[in-house]
């Protein structure tokens, strides 16, 4: 909490992000889409046990970044290591924006959540036990015997998040997870995600197109420039959790959001 006083508008130096040993190290990442370099020797460290949001102008490659880290999109060059290990040695969770197409409609919500365990050849009884454990830990109140298409959008996305968490991942990626939900559901889901994070303290990388959401949820906001993406600033925000509606009216929230917005608009105008 000693840093709280400078948290409002701090100049984020690389030293700050490296205070603790980083969880993920990204070095020399390159990616070109149809002759447009999206990433050109991009370096970044993701801190351990923090929730970071990736925010930046449209088309700057926010999703591409987590997709490259999570192995969904192969980078043209560069290296991503998790405590020095490659992705194949790492248990991770990934939550898609489009929950309708990411869940399996032929499986009940319960079996959707258990599916990654089934892939790992975990016995049925152990699967059931672990799903029930996760449900009670997160305090989820959904009838999991229903099929995804019988659930609301928010409930479906919550099932997706639980499916990502069931393997006890060391890192969780979420690609604009709430942008297909209505505002009421988005507010509810933010708090669900915050609860998940407080419960599990899993390193979490969230791509967001909503600055309010990005700041509200994060320990750090990673502001990216227009392509080729650079780190404009890695903005810390360390209001205590659980954060609530009141958090959003506090001065350091307002200041941090304004600071991010200023940088963002500079980037947008630059293009």
């Amino acid at each position, binding site marked *: 909490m000693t840093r709280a006083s400078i948290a409002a508008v701090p100049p984020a130096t690389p030293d700050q992000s490296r205070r603790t040993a980083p969880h993920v190290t990204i070095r020399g990442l390159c990616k070109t889409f149809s002759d447009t370099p999206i990433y050109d020797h991009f370096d970044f460290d993701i801190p351990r046990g923090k929730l970071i949001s990736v925010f930046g102008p449209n088309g700057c490659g926010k999703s591409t970044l987590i997709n490259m880290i999570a192995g969904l999109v192969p980078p043209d060059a560069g290296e991503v290591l998790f405590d020095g290990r490659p992705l194949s040695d790492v248990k991770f969770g990934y939550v898609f924006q489009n929950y309708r197409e*990411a869940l399996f409609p032929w499986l009940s919500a319960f079996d959707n959540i258990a599916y990654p365990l089934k892939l790992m050849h975990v016995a049925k009884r152990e699967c059931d036990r672990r799903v029930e454990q996760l449900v009670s830990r997160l305090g989820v109140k959904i009838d999991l015997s229903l099929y995804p298409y019988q659930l609301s959008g928010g409930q479906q996305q919550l099932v997706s998040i639980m499916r990502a968490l069931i393997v006890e991942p060391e890192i969780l990626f979420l690609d604009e997870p709430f942008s297909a939900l209505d505002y009421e559901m988005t507010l509810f889901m933010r708090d669900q995600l915050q609860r998940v994070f407080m419960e599990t303290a899993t390193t979490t990388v969230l791509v967001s197109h909503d600055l309010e959401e990005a700041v509200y949820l994060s320990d750090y906001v990673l502001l990216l420039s227009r392509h080729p993406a650079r780190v404009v600033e890695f903005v810390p925000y360390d209001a205590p959790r659980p954060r609530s509606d009141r958090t959003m009216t506090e001065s350091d929230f307002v200041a941090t959001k304004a600071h991010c917005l200023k940088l963002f608009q500079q980037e947008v105008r630059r293009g």
Partner: protein
Amino acid sequence: MNRSKALLPLVGVVILLAVWSLVTSLKLVDPVLLPSPLSTFRTLWAGMVGGKLGADFIKTVMRTITSTAIAAVIAIPLGILLGSSEKLYRSVEFLIDFFRSTPASAMFPLFLVLFGVGDRTKISVAAFGAALVILFNVAYGVMNARKTRLLAAKVMGASRSRVLFDVMLKESLPQTFVGLRNGVSLALVIIVVAEMFIGSTDGLGQRVFEAQQLFDMPGMYAAIFAAGALGYTLNLLFLVIERRFVHWAGR
């Protein structure tokens, strides 16, 4: 209100029967050409229960089911194989489309040469027609599997074969059932035509044709209704199976 809604589908049937009764009772059409509904349905009932029509009905059912089953056994695995490789599918797409567009009835002479006059010819032509329809649908179902769903399975660490069996196959099921329903309808059409003209002695096609030759109009209408009921029931059967096993289709 709900009950009257449930009765709506019967309205058309009642109107048809009323018009038909009116036409026959007023003798607006030569009674030899159009028998009354009563005599038609009496003939249908007598024929189906212990009469020759019932035996022919069963023959046609057996042929249609056999040819559809053969078609499914060949076309479903092949469709999965083609659908899972875009390159493979594109390289045979023209052939499939060409033969799918070729009227299967045009293949009768060829199959007659190959299999002789008998059940094998009828069943193989029908199976040929149905197989192409099923193949096309299964391949499309597999190819149009939602990319996000495949990616989700991959990201959770599913191997290629797990992705194929756990996701692609399930994804293709709704389209597979569309193929099966179209396939069985086509098989029935081909079987009935074959029974009429390809040296047949039994089956619904033969019954219709023979009744017409003998100017047995109630018998002819009865056989037509039997064929209609068969087609309708087969389609319904596949729909019920589909609802049961592909509960997520269209949702």
